[in-house]
């Protein structure tokens, strides 16, 4: 094997594999992600230049890395391009109505607290129509992981403005430029009480994988925002090139600043994007508070009698 070939296969100088061992089924080598994807539905519907596939790759790799029981993971998606992720992952998948994956996930969690709930949806679904569920779940600190793929637009319906579309950017419902300032998702999550907040772009695939793996093992409401290109609408309408041009842009303009105050993480039109892990703290989760309160009540009842 040539050195280059060895490097690509993850074999370092001492001849050992750097990456995970090769998977086999009946001695046939399969792709590492095959057992986590519904292969009968691949090829998927996402456009060329879309970053959602990268987010899914990071997610499946993180699932393995986090070493959690995959039978106890439920993935809930809403409506939109990112909302189709639940349909491609081989877990207990739920493709719910627009804006309600977090509410749905809250129900799953309270119904069976053993299940690790992952909400995988887009910025429009989670922050626009789902905004109320987002802030309430953060306030209650429901134990779930929210992966929010932010492509700054409503892609599935044809490129309308989203609450994350930067000021002055073009979209079909802001044909003269967006007039509303966007939400800063990490700041919103942080001020509502989330315990783990991170942002990466689809370029930072390894760091994203590590973040998701960390968040999967974190108890409480965790949010990982994934900045993703949308070559069909956002970057085309705004003449920013295609997916690869957007990735180059992320490469040149993303700055890693762990622990940065979430107030400073605004994203403007083609400005610097600050990425990193911003918040990692502890707070009693919803079920913790509930159980504590329940035991207190029971004690009081006994005292009253």
């Amino acid at each position, binding site marked *: 094997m040539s050195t280059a070939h060895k490097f690509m296969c993850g074999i370092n100088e001492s001849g050992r594999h750097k990456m995970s061992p090769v998977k086999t089924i009946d001695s046939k080598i399969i792709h590492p992600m095959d057992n986590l994807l519904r292969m009968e539905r691949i090829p998927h519907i996402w456009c060329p230049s879309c970053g959602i596939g990268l987010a899914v790759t990071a997610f499946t790799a993180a699932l393995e890395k986090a070493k959690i029981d995959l039978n106890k993971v439920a993935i809930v998606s809403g409506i939109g391009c990112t909302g189709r992720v639940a349909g491609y992952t081989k877990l207990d998948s739920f493709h719910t109505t627009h804006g309600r994956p977090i509410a749905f996930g809250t129900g799953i969690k309270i119904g069976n607290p053993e299940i690790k709930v992952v909400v995988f949806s887009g910025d429009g679904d989670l922050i626009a129509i789902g905004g109320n569920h987002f802030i*309430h779940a953060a306030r209650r600190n429901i134990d779930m992981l929210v992966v929010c793929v932010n492509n700054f637009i409503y892609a599935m319906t044809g490129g309308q403005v989203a609450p994350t579309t930067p000021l002055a950017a073009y979209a079909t419902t802001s044909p003269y430029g967006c007039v509303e300032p966007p939400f800063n998702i990490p700041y919103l999550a942080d001020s509502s009480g989330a315990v783990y907040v991170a942002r990466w772009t689809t370029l930072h695939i390894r760091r994203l994988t590590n973040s998701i793996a960390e968040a999967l093992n974190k108890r409480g409401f965790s949010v990982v925002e994934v900045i993703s290109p949308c070559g069909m609408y956002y970057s085309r309408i705004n003449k920013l090139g295609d997916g690869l041009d957007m990735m180059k842009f992320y490469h040149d303009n993303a700055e890693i600043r762990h622990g940065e105050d979430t107030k400073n993480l605004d994203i403007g039109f083609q400005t610097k994007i600050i990425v990193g892990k911003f918040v990692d703290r502890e707070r009693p989760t919803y079920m913790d508070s509930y159980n504590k309160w329940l035991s207190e009540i029971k004690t009081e009842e006994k005292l009253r009698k």
Partner: protein
Amino acid sequence: MNPIITAFSKGIEKSGIKPSKVSVPSDIPFGSEVVNHLGVDFFHTIRGRAIPFGTGLKLGNPALKVVPFVGDLMTLGGNHFVHAGRRNMELLVICVNNFVYRKIGGQPTPSTPVTFSPYSTFEEPFNIPHLGNSCGAVYTARWTALHTDELANSIAEALNKQGLSVIEVISPGPNYYTKIEDIESNLINFYYENSVIKNGEDPKNARITPEEKIVVGKFTDKERPTFIDSYNAQLSKVLGDKFTPYGGKNG
């Protein structure tokens, strides 16, 4: 509610704005005498939707001064609140907060044996000024119902402010487990006496917890382009003469 209405009336007077130009969408049913006394246009909207109703009123006629008076700000109306903050929609949101929060440890409840909820709640409440401020509101304040003068001043200031203002008013409300008069007169005084005025405090530090006094005051007062300003600026830039700034013909 009465001291709040007095403060509201005083506030409108102080601000110099004609009461006939003030529209109040609310999910709290005001009495008709109250509306007559205030001299405003009152809309009893459905629960949680006072803010988007107010958005429609404001955008339909930018000359109006819209004051959503909400009881339910954060449950049904949570989404509308955070987005109105982001857009900096020109509304003054007065939130009458009669929450039931964690057991007030050591709080002498009124003379009846049952506390004012059968079991206290275990959820962390929202810190409304902090949430409003982080979503982009330009003016945030909190007062209790008995701080009538300070509340009237806040309302007057906020009415003349351009953008989303939030004034949270801590006030008791009726409940089903004790007699109303007992609760109201004791609680309204309790809130007033257990509050501490800290003007200019960072709303992040103004969480309401049963162990500490309630932090009240005018917290933030900043400037940001409003929705209509931003709309006019962006469209004038792109369309030039073909566009007449909105609000010009009505305002």
